[in-house]
C-alpha cells in the first residue's frame, strides 16, 4: 500500500475561479451584483421586482438573471418591469453555478447596467456551496415556512450576512413569531443583518437596499 498526496487544491476550484472571473468582470463594468436565493416561493422574484421599481425610479439601470429549473415566468416578470433580463433554465441542476452566470452575462449589455440581480433557483441549501461572483448574497425566507428555519439550517445562516424574512403580514395567521427567527439568527450570526419584510405591503425593502449600499442615501449612486 502507498499513498499519493495532493496539494490541497479545492475540488470546486474551477467554480471558485469562475466566480472570481465573474466578480472581476462585473467590477470592471461598474456593475453592482446582488445574488438572491432562498426557498421556493419565499418572495425572491417579488423582492427583485420591487427593487427594480425603486432603483429605476432613481434613474439606475437595472438588469436581472432569472434562474429556474424550467419555464420563464420570473424572467417575464422582470422584463415587464422594464429591466433587461436573461432567463437561465438549470433543468436537472438544483442550483445556478458561476459558469451559467458567465454565459448569461454575455447576453447583457453590461456597459449600460448599474445594478444586476441574480435570482437563483428556489432552493435554500444548494447554492450556498456555489459562489456566483456577486457583491452580496441575500437569503430570502418567509414566515410561512415556520419559525424554525434558522434552527434547521444553522450553518447556512451562520454564513449569510443578509437575510430577509418575508410575508410578516401572515405571521399571526400561520402562528409564527418573527422575533424567534430574529433571536435564532443573531445567535448563529452576530454580525449579520436581518430584515423583516412584507413585500406585499411594500414594507422593509428600503432598509435592505440601504444595507446593500443601494439606498437613496448612498452617495456612490
Amino acid at each position, binding site marked *: 500500500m502507498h499513498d499519493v498526496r495532493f496539494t490541497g487544491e479545492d475540488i*470546486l476550484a474551477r467554480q471558485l475561479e469562475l466566480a472570481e472571473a465573474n466578480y472581476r468582470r462585473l467590477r470592471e463594468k461598474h456593475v453592482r451584483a446582488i445574488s438572491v436565493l432562498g426557498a421556493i416561493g419565499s418572495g425572491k422574484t417579488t423582492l427583485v421586482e420591487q427593487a427594480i421599481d425603486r432603483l429605476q425610479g432613481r434613474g439606475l439601470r437595472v438588469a436581472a438573471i432569472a434562474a429556474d429549473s424550467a419555464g420563464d415566468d420570473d424572467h417575464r416578470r422582470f422584463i415587464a418591469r422594464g429591466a433587461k433580463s436573461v432567463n437561465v433554465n438549470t433543468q436537472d441542476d438544483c442550483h445556478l*453555478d458561476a459558469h451559467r452566470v458567465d454565459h448569461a452575462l454575455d447576453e447583457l449589455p453590461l456597459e449600460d447596467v448599474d445594478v444586476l440581480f441574480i435570482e437563483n433557483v428556489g432552493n435554500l441549501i444548494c447554492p450556498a*456551496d456555489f459562489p456566483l461572483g456577486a457583491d452580496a448574497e441575500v437569503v430570502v425566507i418567509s414566515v410561512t415556512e415556520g419559525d424554525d428555519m434558522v434552527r434547521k439550517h444553522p450553518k447556512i445562516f451562520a454564513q449569510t450576512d443578509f437575510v430577509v424574512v418575508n410575508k410578516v403580514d401572515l405571521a399571526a395567521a400561520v402562528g409564527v413569531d418573527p422575533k424567534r427567527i430574529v433571536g435564532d439568527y443573531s445567535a448563529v450570526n452576530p454580525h449579520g443583518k436581518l430584515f423583516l419584510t412584507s413585500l406585499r405591503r411594500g414594507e422593509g425593502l428600503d432598509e435592505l437596499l440601504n444595507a446593500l449600499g443601494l439606498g437613496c442615501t448612498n452617495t456612490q449612486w
Partner: protein
Amino acid sequence: MHEYTVVDELIGALVPRLCEHPGRVRAVVVRKGELRILSDHALVSAFEILARGTRLEGAELVVETVATVVSCAACGYRGSTGRLVEEGDHFSIPVLSCPRCGSEVRVDAGRELYVDHVTLSDDSPADG
C-alpha cells in the same frame, strides 16, 4: 443534491492525476471544512455510483472534517470559535465572531474541500 456535482468534479480531476500511479485505488481521502453545506453520507453514496466504470470503482471515499479557524483584525486573536450547541446535542456549529472581543472575523479554515491523499495497493486492478 449538489453532492453529485461535487463528486463528479472530484472524479474528473482525480483520475487523470493518477495516471502515473499504478495499483488499485483503495481509498480516496477528502478533507471537508465543517462550514461546507455538504452531507458526508450523500458524498459517499454519490461516489459509489459515479465511480463505477472508472479507475476509482470500489474505492472507499473517506471524508475527514476540518475544524473552523478564524482570525480577528481588531484584537489579533487566531484560533477556534465559540460554538452554538443545540438542545439535545443534535449539532454544534461555529459562531463566526471573535470569541475574545466579539468583532467580525476572517475565516482561515473551515470552508475547504480537497483531496488530501489516495491510498493505492500495489496489486493491479485485474488481480481481483
